């Protein structure tokens, strides 16, 4: 009887904690809506949804690319392609209206863009977290993600500072797949990539688990909500660079020396609150949402921290910096360029995919030498 009571208490114990987590998250969303505006509260809620979906359903980018390259397991990448296709069906027609209410993640292909995507792909395998993955990992208590995140922000700030110099090296005209024809071409390309992945898949690895289907549906719905509320696609990198830029300005750095940070739109955002910046809000929401899931799960935060050699921690910091810098040159990370670029019809999203996949193959080879593989 006594044991039964103890068991009951153990089962009941999570409920007050979980109620407190939901209550705290709701309060923060309401506070932002009341003090900054309803749109910004809603964007924070969308960010929380991303964090919960990504961590709760274990939907990511770096991990599935690793599984594809090392073990020919394409399920995670197929789920990414499914989510992108679902968003594209709505987003490409909306963006193609061209009235400026809704803009796409459109950027030109260029030398720096391709090189940036390659470096980002390599660095994200070192960290084993992409743009969104680093946020999720930090929020769920992964110390590698937590260390990489501030360096990611610094790199994004520095990459933005130098962006125009890099784009001057050579950039093609902007190519956007628009209208019904653009949507059909995008869906056909996504289908062709999916078919190729299924063809090369290891025996028994061609199934898409229900969990990943649910994750793809959730991420697609949240990405469309982001588009309808913010007027722009889901992104990560701009907000991180903005945080570092605000910090630099507070320390006395003269941002007017940078053509990027001195541009009128960026000056305005530097003077405004991050609680009115779209990507800042969704980034904060992703970190907090991942924390909610980790704290919600029984034992979710009780995993011991990994014991890595010093060179591994140094490598994580350098890779975080490289991810931030390279993602600016590449006009986005896996979210802003790959996911949002392709789903809104930008050619650079496809080029980013190819270059970052090649970079990922290189990054996977670096991990053992950097002390990031083996027993933890």
């Amino acid at each position: 009887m006594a044991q039964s009571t103890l068991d009951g208490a153990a089962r009941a114990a999570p409920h007050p904690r979980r109620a407190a987590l939901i209550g705290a998250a709701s309060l923060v969303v309401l506070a932002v809506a009341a003090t900054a505006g309803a749109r910004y509260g809603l964007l924070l809620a969308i960010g929380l949804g991303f964090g919960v979906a990504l961590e709760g359903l274990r939907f990511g980018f770096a991990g599935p690319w690793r599984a594809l390259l090392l073990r020919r397991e394409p399920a995670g990448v197929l789920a990414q392609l499914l989510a992108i296709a679902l968003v594209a069906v709505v987003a490409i027609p909306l963006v193609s209206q061209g009235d400026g209410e809704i803009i796409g993640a459109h950027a030109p292909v260029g030398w720096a863009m391709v090189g940036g995507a390659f470096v980002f792909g390599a660095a994200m395998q070192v960290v084993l977290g992409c743009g969104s993955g680093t946020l999720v990992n930090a929020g769920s208590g992964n110390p590698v993600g937590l260390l990489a995140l501030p360096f990611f922000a610094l790199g994004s700030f520095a990459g933005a500072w130098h962006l125009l110099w890099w784009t001057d090296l050579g950039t093609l005209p902007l190519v956007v797949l628009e209208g019904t024809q653009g949507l059909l071409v995008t869906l056909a390309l996504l289908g062709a990539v999916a078919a190729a992945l299924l063809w090369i898949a290891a025996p028994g690895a061609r199934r898409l688990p229900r969990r990943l289907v649910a994750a793809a549906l959730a991420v697609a719905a949240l990405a469309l909500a982001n588009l309808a509320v913010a007027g722009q696609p889901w992104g990560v990198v701009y907000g991180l660079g903005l945080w570092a830029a605000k910090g630099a300005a507070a320390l006395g750095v003269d941002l007017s020396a940078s053509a990027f940070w001195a541009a009128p739109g960026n000056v305005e955002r530097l003077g405004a609150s991050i609680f009115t910046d779209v990507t800042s809000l969704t980034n904060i929401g992703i970190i907090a949402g991942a924390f909610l899931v980790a704290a919600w799960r029984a034992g979710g935060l009780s995993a011991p921290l990994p014991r890595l050699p010093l060179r591994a921690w140094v490598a994580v910091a350098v890779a975080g910096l490289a991810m931030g810098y390279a993602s600016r040159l590449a006009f986005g990370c896996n979210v802003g360029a790959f996911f949002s670029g392709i789903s809104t019809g930008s050619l650079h999203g496809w080029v980013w995919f190819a270059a970052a996949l090649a970079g990922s193959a290189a990054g996977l080879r670096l991990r053992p030498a950097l002390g990031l593989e083996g027993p933890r």
Partner: protein
Amino acid sequence: MTRRLTAGLAVAALLALAAFDLATAELDPYGAPPLFALGSGQGSGGAHCAALPE
């Protein structure tokens, strides 16, 4: 040490970021844009990693 420490640090970093921001910038809920950009008739701000500065 467990992830409780690092997750706590992540939350503390978010709180510090919010405190820094609130100390250096003002919020104006009355000047906020409509709830949805879609159908608002207003142009998007363009603060996105794919956007070059204008």
